[in-house]
């Protein structure tokens, strides 16, 4: 595999990381910690939204993020013929 292609592959990978890690930061640090009081004003069922993100929602999103990452990377590997 030549250097140009390697660089392109790596760049796309970094772009995915930046997007997924922003969501990771948003649901835990922003929704679960920094803005927790503001979100707690909103209620669904018996949950205050900020509290729910801190103890439930962020974990669900983490799981989804990793599976989305797996899919994106499998596609990317295929595109560059790096899959096995």
């Amino acid at each position, binding site marked *: *595999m030549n250097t140009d292609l*390697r660089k392109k*592959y*790596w760049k796309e*990978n970094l772009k995915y*990381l930046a997007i*997924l*890690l922003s969501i*990771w930061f948003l649901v*835990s*640090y922003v929704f*679960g*910690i*920094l803005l*927790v*009081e503001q979100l*707690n004003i909103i209620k669904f*069922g*018996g*949950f*205050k939204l900020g*509290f*729910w993100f*801190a*103890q*439930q929602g*962020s*974990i*669900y999103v*983490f*799981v989804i*993020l*990793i*599976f989305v*990452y*797996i899919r994106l*990377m*499998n596609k990317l*590997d295929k595109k560059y013929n*790096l*899959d*096995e």
Partner: protein
Amino acid sequence: MDIQTWTWVLVGVTFTLYIGIAIWSRASSTGEFYVAGKGVHPIANGLATAADWMSAASFISMAGIISFGGYDGSVYLMGWTGGYVLLALLLAPYLRKFGKFTVPDFIGDRYYSNIARVVAVLCALIVSFTYVAGQMRGVGLVFSRFLEVDIDTGVIIGMFIVLFYAVLGGMKGITYTQVAQYCVLIFAFMVPAIFISIQMTGNPIPQIGFGSSGSDGVYLLDKLDGLHRELGFHEYTSGSKTKIDVFFITAALMVGTAGLPHVIVRFFTVKKVSDARKSAGWALLFIAILYTTAPAIAVFARTNMIETVSNQKYEDLPDWFSNWETTGLITFDDKNKDGRVQYVADASKNELTVDKDIMVLANPEIARLPNWVIALVAAGGLAAALSTAAGLLLVISSSISHDIIKKIVNPKITENGELIAARLSAVVAVIIAGWFGINPPDFVAATVALAFGLAAASFFPAIVLGIFYKRMNKEGAIAGMVVGILLMLFYMMKFKFDWFGGGTKEDWWFGISPEGFGTVAMIVNFIVSLIISSFTPEPPKEVQEIVDNIRIPNNAGKATH
């Protein structure tokens, strides 16, 4: 059957299963001993990682901590799951492509230096030993409570079991026992949770149940907030820690999780890079089942406990109360002599102290569940403690036989010689761990939580920079790791053990607790590494090629020396 008979039966059956698996999957080469021959299926690896990861602390203590802390407990929930996102995206695939046996292997080769390797081995040993001592103690506690043998005998039984399957089976044996242990522990955790959720809310899914209302039509969480206000505690859903501290503790736990060597090494056991990504996903899914249930158990147990004991006559309390009183984990001191239990926030009026660990262990009794469920919790606690202990012991033994003996002291050692060395170091490690379990030094409990800070402050920056920053050289990485771990040790000793002049909460730097300080030490590590590396020569060509190579996923190949 009574609880004790049930417990002996369930513990006996599960232990026989673990030993059977170990005999069936014993290791015959160093590749199998260290990384299970790199042939583990990603789902099996996900299960094993989940068991490896969830320790006695996750199984026994975490729901209790959340139960008493309310929102404050969120740091553990987010911290100990969010780390897997970092692990999956930033570390696992690249380390698998690198294709060696241990974390110090990567640090030593990537930073072309045996000094870096030794620093990494020392960090791995410090982190793993503080962690394993707590596990052996956990085994002893479960034995003593449920089987009425004393704690020390319990620790020794646990030592023999772990010794048997870790020494015989190596990583291969551990992997498949951990798969079985995950099944045992998750079943043991979920059965009481589902029962109690149905009892209290009518909903069989605990994750939804704790957001529903009880038979009186009031939302459970609202009721609990009300009870807390009444008794003078902070509201359950809002917590008492400062925002900056919650932020930093969560970050330290996340990054620490991603930097723990016994977790990282699990991703070396799969066949290819895409399998390493997949197993991180499965691992987190399996972990999330327990971690999203724990806050529900916390709410159920807290409400149940307050409603059962608060302002009740002492002689009217149910049997479980006196059962646990005899273990000393619940104490009642009738300060105002009215014969009733006053459970309030004000320490001068409060008459009840409850150890946080019993929230999970006593929960089935409090909810009057059948005896076999109570026994199941004991078997689950043992599975959680044993699986984590085994994973840690393997890191310790491979650090010694592979990173020290094979790579530094005697590179000419034969395959067989190394395998014997690995088994002997596992035996020594079990004995030391057992000794710590029987004579726990006071600092063990305090340092287990801080092991994460230590891992965050040392490994994480060195590994991430090693992958994502080609220009990072040995001078920068070594300086960063040394400064990071020393700074963390200093802060921990100052504020936890009162050394270097000690200090109280008011003296914390920027209001950050020692538990959250790992984040600061990690940032310092990054800065030191970057500055030092910019003044020193760039790494040699071959090393830059290694970095190029690990960024591309194909041809990960078999385990190589």
